[in-house]
């Protein structure tokens, strides 16, 4: 999307400041907001046991369905489990899924994209397969794969990764196809640089910025897909407190105890928003058209 210059105007910045990327990032508020929010979520996930939480699985039928209070900050669910503790621990699951899927899909997509970008006959075959897979809505791929395997966090990550690989592949291939025709690659080739050295030194580094941006969006969508899968009963096993699972459990009680759905939903939305803001900021910061003006 070619929105970069006006996004700046939107943020009240008259022009791109001099002084390189660091100054630019410092003056880019949405990226900072996204980064800080995401950082807080990561810290919360890491230090979950020290944040006034109790065992997220501890049952206490006597204290079931208590409304949020000083003792139970987010209330308790129908089994008397503390919703606050479950929500805080749920961040671990969502962030694990988001980060794992983003890393796995990026690495696999990068390798396939590099190969197809350089080899004409693999390109013809692999890209037809990718086109086909991309016409299946990714949530259906994940649902189909999950219906076949046993519910586990690893299988959720694998299923979402498989659904996301075609999009990453297409992006990397597109970048490689553009790059290989550019004069500097031709020059490197003419001066006798070997194929792998061109790939490693000239092509690969240039695919990383768009891949980084794409990675943030993959992470955000993976977290939503995980929540949807768990919500539909095809995701993380019910004994793991993921945000989708907590919401699925609160579904039937929504009219009497809406807070069970509200809090994990809120945390999921904030985390996805943070990653999206970060991704938008990164895209503007790394946009080559913009970089030329800096």
């Amino acid at each position, binding site marked *: *999307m070619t*929105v970069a210059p006006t996004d700046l105007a939107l943020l009240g910045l008259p022009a791109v400041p001099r002084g390189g990327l660091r100054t630019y990032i410092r003056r880019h508020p949405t990226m900072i907001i996204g980064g800080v929010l995401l950082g807080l979520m990561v810290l919360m996930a890491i230090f979950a046991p020290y944040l006034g939480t109790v065992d997220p699985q501890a049952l206490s039928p006597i204290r079931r369905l208590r409304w949020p209070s000083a003792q139970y900050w987010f209330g308790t669910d129908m089994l008397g489990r503390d919703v606050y503790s479950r929500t805080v621990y749920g961040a671990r699951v969502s962030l694990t899924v988001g980060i794992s899927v983003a890393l796995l899909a990026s690495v696999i997509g990068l390798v396939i994209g590099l190969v197809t970008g350089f080899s004409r006959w693999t390109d013809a075959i692999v890209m037809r397969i990718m086109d*086909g897979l991309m016409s299946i809505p990714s949530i259906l791929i994940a649902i189909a794969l999950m219906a076949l395997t046993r519910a586990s966090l690893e299988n959720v990550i694998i299923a979402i990764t498989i659904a996301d690989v075609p999009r990453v592949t297409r992006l990397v291939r597109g970048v490689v196809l553009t790059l290989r025709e550019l004069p500097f690659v031709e020059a490197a080739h003419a001066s006798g640089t070997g194929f792998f050295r061109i790939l490693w030194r000239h092509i690969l580094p240039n695919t990383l910025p768009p891949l980084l941006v794409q990675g943030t969006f993959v992470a955000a969508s993976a977290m939503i897909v995980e929540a949807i899968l768990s919500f539909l009963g095809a995701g993380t096993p019910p004994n793991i407190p993921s945000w989708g699972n907590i919401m699925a459990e609160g579904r039937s009680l929504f009219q009497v105890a809406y807070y069970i759905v509200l809090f994990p939903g809120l945390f999921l939305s904030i985390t996805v928003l943070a990653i999206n803001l970060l991704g938008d900021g990164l895209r503007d910061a790394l946009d080559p058209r913009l970089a030329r003006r800096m």
Partner: protein
Amino acid sequence: MFAYIVRRILATIPVMAVVALFVFSLLHLSPGDPAVIIAGDTATVDDIARIRQKLGLDQPLYVQFVTWVWGLLHGDLGISIFTNLPVSKLIAQRVEPTLTLTISTLLVSILAAVPMGVLAAWKAGSWIDRVVMVFAVLGFSVPVFVLAYVLIYVFAISTDLLPVQGYVTIGGGLWPFLSHIVMPTLALGMVFAALIARMTRASMLDVLAQDYIRTAQAKGLANDKVLIGHALKNAAVPIATIIGIGVAALISGVVVTETVFAIPGLGRLTVDAILRRDYPIIQGIILVFSAAYVLINLLVDLSYTLLDPRIRY
């Protein structure tokens, strides 16, 4: 032009072939015996044998594939394991609510999002632009079911304006129909509208920077004529493209929205099939949804020539 249409239609064949191959191989790619997986944990040896025989899993792989594709080409999507009814019949029974919800969402999102994007681009940098961009970012970030529950809380639980869930066909009266479809449409349309608003704004900004827009303004043409007649018309192709691509998000959202609002459509059929491991239904639904997605994007591609007469093939 005619040659292009034929070529474009033929190009969907390999895509659908890959989809069919994927759907077929799903059962065989999975680790372990598909019959055992489908039968579940409590199955007896007889159950497994029965399922194996019913799905034709006892035959060689190529025979299974040929039989399956032959059936597909004749509209036979197999037999549901749980209900013993043909999958094509089960799907046909559930199409109406899903189609209604999807069409109403498409209409509402496009009618709301395109003007938003146009205004945002026209008043770039103003508060209108900021509001639209905030909407666009939020629309991407709030998952469908979270938004659905917020709507239910506001309009059904705390104010009692709309029914909590359920579905009424248009034949059941206009108000009952509308009151049941409003919340699902809004919940489902948010992501889609955010996507379209964002693309409309970006595409309009590109066009508004062109010389012919300045010329049109310089000759004293009214703002609305410049915006609609000159700018939006030229910005239409990327908007049509994103609408086609966004249908994938719409299909994902339908499954969730129907679950939250208890709408008896294809999404609910999917969820029931997952819980019962009724694999022929899941396969059939993937094929139908993917075919719909491919078809819509084919129509979008063909619409380019109408939207922009400069495009000739």
